[in-house]
């Protein structure tokens, strides 16, 4: 594939900017994003502290416990990383369609259905003792493919019929959970699962193992690899360039003859792949079977992860780890401060609202603005 540089190289010299200015302009816009995001985080921290003070709780203790429960020991760090793994993938599932201007909030559904389908396809394979590695591959591919088709359907509806993708993906999430419940409570229910209806356990041999010397499963590495690969795809290839053009101005993209429909379909399928893969890891590395625990809101937290990362695939990684830490510290906060597990949801909600309100300050500070005119 051609890189963007090969296009700019063909431009007449006066349109080519010196590489120094280009980097410093890029530096300006990047630091604008990072600094505003940090200020938004600080502001939401203050607002949340106010909320805690009103309830008679100690905010300092809260944030100290988040640090302790998220990063304080090697155990808690690994716990955070373990929870970050699905968040990286669901964050990407929001970020990639966002690049083409779509607000797809259905990662939860693709995760549930991807996880369920990989557990379902495992039943005949595991019970006939098929070889381990091909079985795992088939499970992972089933999860990925199911997710891609599920979210791809919403993309197809968007481009074929103009159906609003935000509402359709959320409806598909509820439908996905209903489909899983239908099978898990009925046809595919393991008779041994008494209290909580589940599919047949895939068994220890077929589960994804932990990384050597760590308590974290391989899903984390796969998530990071996906993030890097998608970052390269979005910033260094003609495909990514075309996606960003279409996201910026559909009419311009259509006038240039870009295949906008195909790009929309591809982006939503990629989103579904990521979410489906997250579902596979939840089944194959954590639960060992499919049940209602799959709908653990990873898909919804991923939306916030992506917004805070400004839909940048690389930035999704640290942000996911941060939210993984908040979730890992939940138990500690529940025990020490006597607060419900929904505390994390309130904190996330406040961060989310403040973050979106902060969109309004972009472009207000001269020091962050590119200086294209003077560079020529």
């Amino acid at each position, binding site marked *: 594939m051609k890189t963007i540089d090969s296009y700019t190289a063909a431009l007449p010299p006066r349109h080519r900017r010196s590489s120094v200015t280009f980097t410093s302009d890029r530096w300006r816009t990047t630091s604008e994003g990072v600094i505003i995001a940090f200020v938004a985080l600080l502001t939401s921290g203050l607002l949340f502290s106010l909320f805690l003070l009103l309830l008679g709780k100690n905010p300092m203790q809260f944030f100290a416990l988040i640090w302790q429960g998220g990063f304080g020991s090697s155990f808690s760090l690994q716990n955070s990383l373990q929870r970050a793994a699905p968040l990286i993938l669901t964050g990407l599932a929001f970020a990639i369609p966002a690049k083409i201007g779509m607000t797809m909030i259905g990662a939860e559904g693709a995760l549930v259905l991807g996880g369920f389908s990989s557990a379902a396809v495992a039943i005949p394979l595991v019970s006939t003792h098929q070889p381990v590695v091909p079985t795992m591959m088939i499970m992972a591919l089933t999860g990925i493919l199911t997710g891609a088709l599920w979210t791809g359907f919403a993309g197809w509806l968007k481009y074929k019929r103009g*159906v609003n993708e935000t*509402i359709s993906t959320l409806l598909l999430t509820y*439908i996905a959970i209903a489909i899983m419940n239908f099978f898990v409570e009925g046809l595919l229910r393991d008779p041994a699962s008494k209290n909580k209806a589940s599919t047949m356990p895939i068994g220890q041999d077929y589960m994804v193992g932990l990384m050597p010397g760590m308590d974290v499963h391989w899903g984390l590495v796969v998530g990071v690899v996906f993030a890097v690969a998608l970052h390269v795809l979005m910033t260094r290839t003609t495909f990514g360039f075309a996606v960003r053009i279409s996201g910026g101005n559909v009419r311009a993209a259509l006038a240039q003859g870009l295949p906008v429909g195909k790009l929309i379909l591809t982006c939503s399928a990629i989103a579904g792949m990521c979410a489906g893969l997250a579902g596979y890891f939840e089944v194959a590395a954590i639960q060992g079977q499919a049940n209602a625990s799959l709908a653990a809101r990873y898909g919804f937290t991923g939306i*916030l992860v992506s917004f805070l990362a400004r839909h940048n695939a690389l930035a999704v990684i640290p942000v996911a780890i941060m939210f993984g830490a908040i979730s890992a510290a939940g138990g500690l906060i529940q025990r020490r401060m006597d607060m419900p597990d*929904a505390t994390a949801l309130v904190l*996330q*909600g406040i961060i989310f*609202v403040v973050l*979106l309100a902060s969109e309004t300050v972009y472009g207000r500070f001269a020091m962050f603005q590119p200086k294209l005119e003077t560079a020529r």
Partner: protein
Amino acid sequence: MTAADIALILTAMLGGAMRVSTPFIFVALGETLTEKSGRINLGLEGTLVLGAMIGYAISYQTGSPWLGVLAAGCSGMLLGLIHGVICSLPRVNDIAVGISMMSLGTGLAFFFGKPYIQPSAPRLQSLEFGGWASNPAIKSALEINPLFIVGIVTAFIMWWGLANTKLGLILRMTGDSEPAARAMGINPIKVRVVATVLGGFLAGVGGAFLSLSYPGSWNEGLSSGQGLMAVALVIFARWNPLRCIVAALLFGAAGAIGPALQSVGISQGYYFFNAAPYILTLIIMISTARSTTAAREAPGELSIIK
């Protein structure tokens, strides 16, 4: 299946439709009000959940379910105010803010709602219109909640008010053309904030119905997307309050299929029928998308239509 069974299912569906549709009516009316001003509030799902929790808690604390309904409405106004003010800032996307308000509302409801999952609060009493019938199925189908009637009356008032009052004209003009509103000396931001706050009130009341009447208890799985389905419902009803009632009854009937079948002993596929309202919404969205009639009746400033 005998004819009696079918009659039983239909009666149960009729009664169920009225029960299930009530929150839809309120959320859809609230969303209509907000969208008529040219803004969309996807956060009504969060408003619904918070309203359900606040309504239940206040009813439990004070012993008066109607006070609960009022408090639920006020919590909805507060969320509406936050949404309205943030969306008035330049460069802020109202759909994204809606998603964030959804998570904030749900988070607050789960946070404060934990102690109220167990205790039983006084519910709203239904009005018995079926006293004449001897059949218990008909009797229970005709137990109508007063909020259902309030919802219908509200719809008629809104329908009349939008078409015949000065306030209705201001609201419609702001939604159709911001420049026209400005030219008339109307501040569109003020109109939209007020419309979002009032819309939040209605959605909060709809939430109170969930916890105080049907299903009639507070738990974290109480609302499952009704707030979002209402957005699709409003498009289907083409921003007309009266059509909102019809659409809500249709959605209610779809939601009542599963329980109605269960009442005659058909429990197979219960989870599948649970998905019926979502599938119906999706089908409606697919069939109304790019419809020229819908586009003609849509408020001109609405981002979801553009």
